């Protein structure tokens, strides 16, 4: 009589997950970086986000001239943190595509005892780490060279850390959802992360306050956790809600928030929204991934090559 297999202890599962994560993170870092020396690698990494920041600067400048008002801070800070949105989401989805179509290793990962989620997250860690560095560099370049009003003394560090951590949970969860979708679409799905980030550009209030959108689109924006995350980061770095000075109707000046819609929420309300979003997105993404993974196995997508 064959004895039943014993389920491994919980501590063994945790150790195995950590080991898979560690190896996947090492692998992800090698793939990201070992094609060039560190200086070339860093230069290439910062080039794209810096170019985007410059595009926004020129767009701002052609209309507003040389002044760097609150709106510029709104735009620049959002863009700096949006790099994390792009890289976190695309990093996870890209792993699926890269391992399946490029290195043709996905089937071996799937047939091994390696934990899939720790593997996915580990592979994406290098991209996210580099994105974080890029964000800091962009903020520094903005403050030193481009006229961004960023005062270290006025940053609300506590809120900044809390918002940041919750944001990373949310973004990682979104990334896992996209990784699942990447499992079942053809090769052009490789850009699913970046493409979704592009959509979020419109719907997250990254480049403009959601107030100017048509009503339906405004509702979409307010339903997305990334909207609140970006608002939280902007507030934390600015030391408060970003506002512009406008002429008053009876002479004098008035201070008006750039986004009155979002200004209606205080920090605690933002925190609650982000906490709730993080919990729901984390749970939902894991469930979704398991379901779509099952679909991928049914359709034989784990090792399918779809080039043209």
């Amino acid at each position, binding site marked *: 009589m064959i004895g039943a297999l014993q389920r491994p202890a919980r501590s063994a599962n945790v150790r195995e997950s950590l080991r898979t994560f560690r190896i996947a993170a090492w692998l992800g870092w090698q793939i990201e970086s070992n094609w060039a020396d560190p200086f070339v690698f860093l230069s290439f990494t910062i080039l794209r986000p810096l170019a985007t920041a410059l595009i926004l600067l020129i767009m701002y400048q052609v209309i507003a001239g040389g002044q760097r008002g609150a709106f510029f801070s709104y735009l620049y800070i959002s863009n700096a943190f949006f790099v994390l949105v792009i890289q976190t989401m695309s990093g996870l989805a890209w792993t699926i595509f890269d391992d399946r179509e490029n290195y*043709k290793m996905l089937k071996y990962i799937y047939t091994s005892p390696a934990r899939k989620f720790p593997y996915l997250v580990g592979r994406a860690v290098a991209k996210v780490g580099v994105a974080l560095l890029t964000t800091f560099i962009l903020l520094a370049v903005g403050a030193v060279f481009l006229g961004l009003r960023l005062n270290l003394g006025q940053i609300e560090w506590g809120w900044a850390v809390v918002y940041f951590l919750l944001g990373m949970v949310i973004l990682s969860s979104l990334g896992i959802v996209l990784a699942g979708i990447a499992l079942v679409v*053809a090769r052009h799905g490789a850009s699913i992360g970046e493409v979704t980030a592009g959509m979020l550009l419109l719907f997250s209030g990254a480049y403009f306050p959601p107030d100017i959108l048509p009503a339906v689109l405004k509702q979409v924006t307010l339903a997305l956790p990334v909207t609140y995350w970006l608002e939280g980061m902007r507030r934390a770095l600015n030391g408060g809600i970003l506002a512009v000075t406008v002429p008053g109707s009876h002479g004098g000046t008035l201070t008006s928030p750039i986004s009155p819609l979002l200004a209606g929420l205080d920090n605690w309300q933002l925190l609650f929204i982000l906490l709730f979003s993080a919990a729901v997105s984390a749970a939902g993404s894991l469930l979704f991934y398991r379901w779509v993974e099952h679909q991928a196995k049914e359709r034989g997508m784990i090792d*399918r*090559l*779809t*080039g*043209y």
Partner: protein
Amino acid sequence: MSNTKDALVDGSEQAAAHAGLALDEQEPVQRDAARPLAIKTENVSRIYKLRKQKNSKGEKQKTLVALNGVNLEVEQGELFGLLGPNGAGKTTLIKILTTLLAPSGGTCYVDGLDVVKQAQEVRRRISMVSGGETSGYGILTVRENLWMFSQFYGVTWKDANQRILEMLRVVELEDKINSRISGLSTGQRQRMNFCRGFITDPKVVFLDEPTLGLDINAARIVRRFTREWMQQNPDRTVLLTTHYMAEADELCDRIAIIDHGTVLACDTPANLKRLLQKQPVFEVHAAGITGRNIEALGHAPGVVRVIGEADETGSAYRLKFILEAEAAISSVVNALAEQQGSIISLQKNEPTLEDVFVALVGRSLTAEDQSES
């Protein structure tokens, strides 16, 4: 072993029949001086520069010599085999001959054309099929993929469609003609790629392990087609690399054995085996010995080479001795007794191509595959 021997003898007879000679009467293929050689290499070498690599001893390695002064002549109408272990230089040589790789030294000619200076002309005359290929576009059907590649050779649409249907029937893949490549199994994909090599009507075909990944039936179909194609087109040439001794023995008019970039021997299968008839081969099934004993047995007087592998039980070894002379078997028996071994069985074998390989290279392909796994 005797079943293998029978198969090899049968295969050899087929090869002999293809060449129009009885097995005992096989002689080296006589050259028709009026016809240009299909393939000729003159002192070809290829050296790879290595980046940040170390050898097994941890020493930095700057270069790797993949080919070292290879000289070969392949006649038109020959089915020429290239045998060798992994890393011997077979694929490197094929890449040079198919204009994918530049030689570091020497010259190569295909159909009388220099592969470096007249690459474009060479390409019109050749095709290449590699084993284990993943080429093709998954989103296209089998027909579309084959048609697309036929266009790169200038085949008319009518000819292409006709040839595609014919070839797919040959490899028994016609029911997949409108299936997407992404849905094919490895073996089906390999059969499709095999078809690609022939629909362009090439003068010289390079087959680099074409039966890799194919089941027995599919491999048999591929070998049969290759033979028939050669018979129907006596001015066409095939250069075949393979790991399967039986395949080489069955198909090839001549075989070159290559190792570490050097050709060790080049002759008909029969003549190569005849070399070893001067060196008898004995197979001994012995118990009570270990791996270290085998090394010691190799030093017994009259032993040219010995290789061994554990049998199914794991407690005994099957040893193959290549001896200088038949009389040396007595020293083998004595050496075994000294090592506290006991003989379960002992028989003399007709030399096989594998025996030739072992004699020249010093190890079998099976052992190499096992050690690599």
